C-alpha cells in the first residue's frame, strides 16, 4: 500500500525542472514565424491625443505593422466586480482599451504598438511614432482628487468618484461612540505598492486563419476567466474560438489575475499580420506602469473603548485610490474584501465603514497579495495599539480582552459585516485565538522586553516590539454569497477537478486552478494519493490550459486550498465509488460488501477476495465485461462550491531596533504562530508564510510607489523601488496551532496570503512602539531611515 503522504513535507515534484533551467515560462516560448510586439506608452499622466503619425515607424527596418487604438474594433476591457453590485450602488466605470484612443489617464497607458521581426526592431520603431499631445493637469492623491477644482478624469465620474460604498451598522456605531468612555482617532495611510513578481507579464497571441481560432499564451493566474472575458466582453468572439494557456508562471501575487490590454492587443496584432504568432513581453520598467499596483488607502479610524480597553465601536472612513481607469476587479478589493473583515478576531459589537473609490492619474490599482485584508488588518491592529497606548494597557492584554472566545464559532458578525445585501450570511468558521498569541509571546520572550529595551537603549538603539493578531479570509467564495447578490465577480466561484485512472493504473489529475509557485503539482498529488491509495509517483497533476482542463476560476485570494481541494477530494470520491461498484461486479459480490482500504477493494469477511484500483482501471478501460448501465473507463469530474470561507488566524510578533542617530530600522526578530488548520504539506505552508512575511515587511520598511505632482512615477524601476533583499531580513521563527476548519473536507484553510496580511501591521506596531519613548504616537509607513530620522528630530525639537 502507498504510504499516506497527506500532511507530509514531501519534496516538490515541480522543482527538478526549475533547478536545472528547464522551466518553461512565457518568454521561453518560441513559435515558428513569431513576430514581436512593443507598445508605445504615454509619457504624460493626463493628456489628450490629438494625432498619431505612424508613417516613419511603418518604414523602419523589420517593421511588419504599426497599430493605433483607432484600428482596433474591440470593446473596452470589462470591469467584473463593481462595489456593492446588486445593492444598487452607482459605479462610475471607465476601463482601458487595447490601446488608448482619445486620451491617456496615467504615465504608461498604451497608445500605439509596433509589430516587427525582432523585439529590438519593434522597440527601435517605437521611437519613430509621432504623437501630438495636449497635456492636461494631473492629480495623483485621492484626497486631492476629491477636492473642489481638482482635474477631472472622466465625464461620467463627477469629482473623480468611482463609488461610495458602506457596510456595517451606522446607528449602533454612533450609539457606541455617544456613550464611549474613551475615543481614539487616527489618520492612517496604507501606501501604494507595486507587486513585482520576478517574472514580468507577457503574451503570445496567435490567430489561425485556417480555423478562425485564437490561442493566447499568457503569464496569468486565471486562464479560464481570461477566455471568458476576452471572448464575451472584449473581442466579441465566440468563447469556444479562444484557447488560453498559462505556462510556468514566475510569481504573480495578484498582479496576473486580470484581463489586460496587451492580451487583446497581441491577439488583434496576430490577426492583423495574417496569423503569425505575436509575442509581447513587458520590460521591468514598463511593468511599473502597465501592470496593476496595490493598496493606496487613506483611512480615518475612530475607536470607542471602555477604560478597561474593551472596544465597543469602530468607525472607518477610507478613500481608495483606484488609478486612472479601473482594473478587472479593482472596486471589489477596498469594499467586500476590506470592510467586511474590519473587526478582525475581535468581538467589536458595532462597526461601520464607508469607502469612496477615487480616480487619479496613476496606474490602476487592484488585488495585491492579501487584497483588502492586509489593509483591514492594518487598521484594526493599529487601532488596538492606539487604544493600548491611550489607556496604558499592554497591547497583548488589550487584544486578550477583545478576542472572540473559542465558543463563539461559527460567528455571525452583529454589525452585519459578513451579511450580503440579500441577507445571505458568511460566518467566521472557527478560531481559538489566545493559545496562538500565548505561544508567540513565549517564543518572543515578550515578558522580558522591558529589559531588552533598556539594553538596546544603552547601545543607542530604540527597541520596539509589535503584535499582529490577524485573521485571514480564504477562498473567495461561495457562489451563492459572492455572485448571486453581486458582492463579487458577478460570477460563480466554484472550482473543478478531473481525475482519470488510465489502463496502466497511472493517474492524471487536471485542475481548473492555476499555480504561480505554490506547488499545486505536489499538493494535489498528495491529496489524490491519500484519497485513492495510489503512490505519488503514479500521479501527475495538470493545469493551465483551457483546452484539456475543466473550467476553473483560477488561483488567488488563497482560494485553491479551500475550494480547489474540495473539488479534488470529491472527484476522488467519485472514482472510488465507481471502482467499488465495478469491484463488486468483478468479485461477484454485493457492492455494500466491498470495503476499500487504500487502493484495495475487498469483500468484507473474505480478505483474499480483492482487486486493486489498478486491476479495476485495467478492466474498466478494456471494457470487455462491464455490467449493464456502467460506462467504461475511470474518469470523473467534480465541481466544488464551498459553503463558507475559511478563516485562518495567528499572532505575529516583530522586534525592531531603530538607530536613534540615523533613523535606520532593522528587523531583528520575527516570530509567527499561524493556525491554517490541517496542512497538506507543512514544508510548502512554511514557504508560503516566509514569502508572505517578507512581502509584508517590505511594505512596512522599504517599498513605496511614489508619484510626483505631475504623475510621473519616481519609483519606476528596481533601482528606485526597494524590494526586500536577503541582507535586510532575518530568518523567521515559525510555529503553529491547529484548529481544523469545519468548512473544508480535509480541514485545511489556506495560507497564500496570511504572512503578508499579518506582517505589515506587526512591523508598523513595532516601529511605533520603538518611537513611543520619544512621544511619537503614530508614524505612517514605510519607515525609511529619512522618515524615521525626521520624526525623531522633530520629536526632540531639532531641525527636521
Amino acid at each position, binding site marked *: 500500500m502507498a504510504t499516506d503522504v497527506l500532511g507530509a513535507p514531501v519534496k516538490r515534484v515541480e*522543482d527538478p525542472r526549475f*533547478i536545472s533551467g*528547464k522551466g518553461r515560462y512565457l518568454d521561453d516560448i518560441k513559435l515558428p514565424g513569431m513576430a514581436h510586439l512593443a507598445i508605445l506608452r504615454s509619457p504624460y499622466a493626463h493628456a489628450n491625443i490629438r494625432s498619431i503619425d505612424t508613417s516613419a515607424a511603418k518604414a523602419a527596418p523589420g517593421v511588419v505593422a504599426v497599430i493605433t487604438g483607432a484600428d482596433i474594433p474591440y470593446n473596452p476591457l470589462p470591469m467584473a466586480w463593481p462595489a456593492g453590485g446588486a445593492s444598487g450602488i452607482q459605479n462610475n466605470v471607465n476601463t482601458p482599451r487595447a490601446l488608448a484612443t482619445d486620451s491617456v489617464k496615467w504615465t504608461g497607458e498604451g497608445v500605439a504598438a509596433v509589430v516587427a521581426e525582432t523585439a529590438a526592431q519593434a522597440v527601435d520603431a517605437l521611437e519613430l511614432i509621432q504623437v501630438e499631445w495636449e497635456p492636461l493637469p494631473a492629480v495623483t492623491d485621492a484626497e486631492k482628487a476629491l477636492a473642489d477644482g481638482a482635474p477631472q478624469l472622466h465625464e461620467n465620474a463627477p469629482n473623480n468618484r468611482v463609488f461610495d460604498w458602506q457596510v456595517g451598522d451606522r446607528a449602533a456605531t454612533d450609539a457606541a461612540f455617544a456613550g464611549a468612555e474613551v475615543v481614539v482617532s487616527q489618520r492612517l495611510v496604507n501606501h501604494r505598492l507595486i507587486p513585482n513578481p520576478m517574472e514580468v507579464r507577457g503574451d503570445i497571441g496567435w490567430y489561425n486563419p485556417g480555423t478562425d481560432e485564437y490561442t493566447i499564451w499568457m503569464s496569468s493566474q486565471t486562464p479560464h476567466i481570461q477566455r471568458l472575458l476576452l471572448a464575451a466582453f472584449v473581442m466579441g468572439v465566440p468563447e469556444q474560438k479562444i484557447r488560453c494557456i498559462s505556462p510556468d508562471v*514566475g510569481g504573480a501575487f495578484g498582479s496576473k489575475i486580470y484581463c489586460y490590454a496587451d492580451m487583446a492587443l497581441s491577439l488583434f496584432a496576430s490577426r492583423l499580420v495574417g496569423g503569425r504568432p505575436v509575442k509581447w513581453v513587458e520590460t521591468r520598467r514598463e511593468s511599473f506602469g502597465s501592470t496593476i499596483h496595490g493598496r493606496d488607502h487613506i483611512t480615518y479610524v475612530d475607536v470607542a473603548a471602555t477604560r478597561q480597553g474593551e472596544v465597543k465601536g469602530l468607525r472607518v472612513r477610507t478613500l481608495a485610490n483606484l488609478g486612472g481607469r479601473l482594473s478587472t476587479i479593482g472596486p471589489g478589493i477596498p469594499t467586500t474584501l476590506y470592510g467586511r473583515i474590519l473587526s478582525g478576531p475581535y468581538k467589536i459589537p458595532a462597526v461601520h465603514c464607508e469607502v469612496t473609490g477615487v480616480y487619479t492619474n496613476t496606474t490602476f490599482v487592484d488585488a495585491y497579495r492579501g487584497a483588502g485584508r492586509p489593509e483591514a488588518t492594518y487598521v484594526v491592529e493599529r487601532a488596538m495599539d492606539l487604544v493600548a497606548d491611550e489607556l496604558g494597557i499592554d497591547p497583548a492584554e488589550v487584544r486578550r480582552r477583545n478576542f472572540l472566545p473559542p465558543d463563539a464559532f461559527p460567528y455571525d458578525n452583529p454589525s452585519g459585516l459578513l451579511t450580503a445585501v440579500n441577507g445571505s450570511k458568511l460566518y467566521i468558521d472557527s478560531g481559538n485565538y489566545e493559545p496562538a498569541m500565548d505561544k508567540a509571546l513565549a517564543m518572543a520572550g515578550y515578558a522580558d522586553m522591558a529589559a531588552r529595551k533598556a539594553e538596546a537603549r544603552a547601545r543607542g538603539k530604540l527597541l520596539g516590539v509589535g503584535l499582529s493578531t490577524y485573521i485571514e479570509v480564504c477562498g473567495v467564495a461561495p457562489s451563492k454569497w459572492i455572485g448571486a447578490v453581486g458582492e463579487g465577480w458577478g460570477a460563480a466561484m466554484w472550482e473543478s477537478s478531473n481525475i482519470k485512472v488510465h489502463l496502466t493504473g497511472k493517474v492524471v489529475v487536471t485542475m481548473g486552478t492555476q499555480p504561480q509557485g505554490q506547488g499545486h503539482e505536489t499538493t494535489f498529488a498528495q491529496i489524490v494519493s491519500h484519497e485513492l491509495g495510489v503512490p505519488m509517483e503514479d500521479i501527475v497533476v495538470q493545469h493551465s490550459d483551457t483546452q484539456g482542463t475543466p473550467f476553473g476560476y483560477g488561483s488567488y485570494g488563497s482560494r485553491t486550498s479551500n475550494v480547489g481541494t474540495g473539488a479534488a477530494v470529491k472527484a476522488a470520491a467519485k472514482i472510488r465509488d465507481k471502482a467499488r461498484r465495478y469491484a463488486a461486479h468483478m468479485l461477484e459480490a454485493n457492492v455494500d460488501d466491498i470495503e476499500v482500504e487504500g487502493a484495495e477493494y475487498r469483500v468484507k469477511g473474505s480478505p483474499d477476495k480483492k482487486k486493486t484500483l489498478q486491476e479495476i482501471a485495467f478492466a474498466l478501460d478494456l471494457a470487455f465485461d462491464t455490467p449493464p448501465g456502467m460506462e467504461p473507463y475511470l474518469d470523473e469530474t467534480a465541481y466544488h462550491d464551498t459553503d463558507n470561507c475559511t478563516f485562518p488566524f495567528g499572532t505575529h510578533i516583530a522586534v525592531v531596533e531603530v538607530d536613534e542617530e540615523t533613523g535606520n530600522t532593522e528587523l531583528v526578530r520575527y516570530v509567527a504562530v499561524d493556525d491554517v488548520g490541517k496542512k497538506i504539506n507543512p*514544508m510548502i505552508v512554511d514557504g508560503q508564510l516566509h514569502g508572505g512575511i517578507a512581502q509584508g515587511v517590505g511594505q512596512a520598511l522599504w517599498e513605496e510607489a511614489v508619484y510626483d505632482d505631475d504623475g510621473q512615477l519616481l519609483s519606476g524601476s528596481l533601482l528606485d523601488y526597494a524590494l526586500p533583499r536577503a541582507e535586510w*531580513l532575518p530568518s523567521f521563527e515559525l510555529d503553529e496551532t491547529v484548529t481544523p476548519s469545519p468548512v473544508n473536507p480535509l480541514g485545511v484553510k489556506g495560507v497564500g496570503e496570511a504572512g503578508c496580511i499579518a506582517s505589515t501591521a506587526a512591523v508598523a506596531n513595532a516601529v511605533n512602539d520603538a518611537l513611543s519613548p520619544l512621544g511619537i504616537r503614530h508614524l505612517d509607513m514605510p519607515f525609511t531611515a529619512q522618515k524615521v530620522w525626521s520624526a525623531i528630530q522633530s520629536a526632540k525639537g531639532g531641525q527636521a
Partner: protein
Amino acid sequence: MAELHVALEVNGEHREVDVEPRTLLVTMLREDLELTGTHVGCDTSQCGACTVHVDGRAVKSCTVLAAQADGTSVTTIEGLGQVGSLHPIQQAFWDKHGLQCGFCTPGMIMAAADLVARNPDPSEAEIRHAIAGNICRCTGYHNIVAAVREAAAVMRGAAASA
C-alpha cells in the same frame, strides 16, 4: 548593423555566434543558444535572475555584452547540473524548498555556487550578503539561506572524504 563574431565555450562546448554589437550576453544565451534557463527579471541590473559563471565567477549576464564574452568560458544553470547529476546547490534547493515559482532560482543557484566555491563554510550573514544582488519575491530568502548552508555542509563532507 554589422554583426560581430563571438567564439566562446558554453557549458563545456565550443560555440560560435554572430550577433549585433548591442546584444547582451543574456540575450545571446537565451535567443541564439536557446539556453532559456537563464532568466531576465529586470532592465537595471538589480535582480540577478540572469546570473551565470564567466570564467568561474558569478556575473549578471545582462551587464555584459555578448562580444565581451568572446574567448571566455561560460557556465549556465543547464551546465551546472542536470537531473541525475545535480550540483549539491541544486539538490539542496530542492531538499530545503529553496524555491517557489522558480524564476529567480537559476540565478540564485549560480550566485550561491560561486559563494560556496570561494567560501566553503559561509555563515548566515555571509550567505545573505553574497546573494544580496539576487532578488527572490517568493521565498523571503529563509529557505534559500538554509539550502546554501546545507549544500556547503554536503560539499565540505564530500571534500573531506575525497
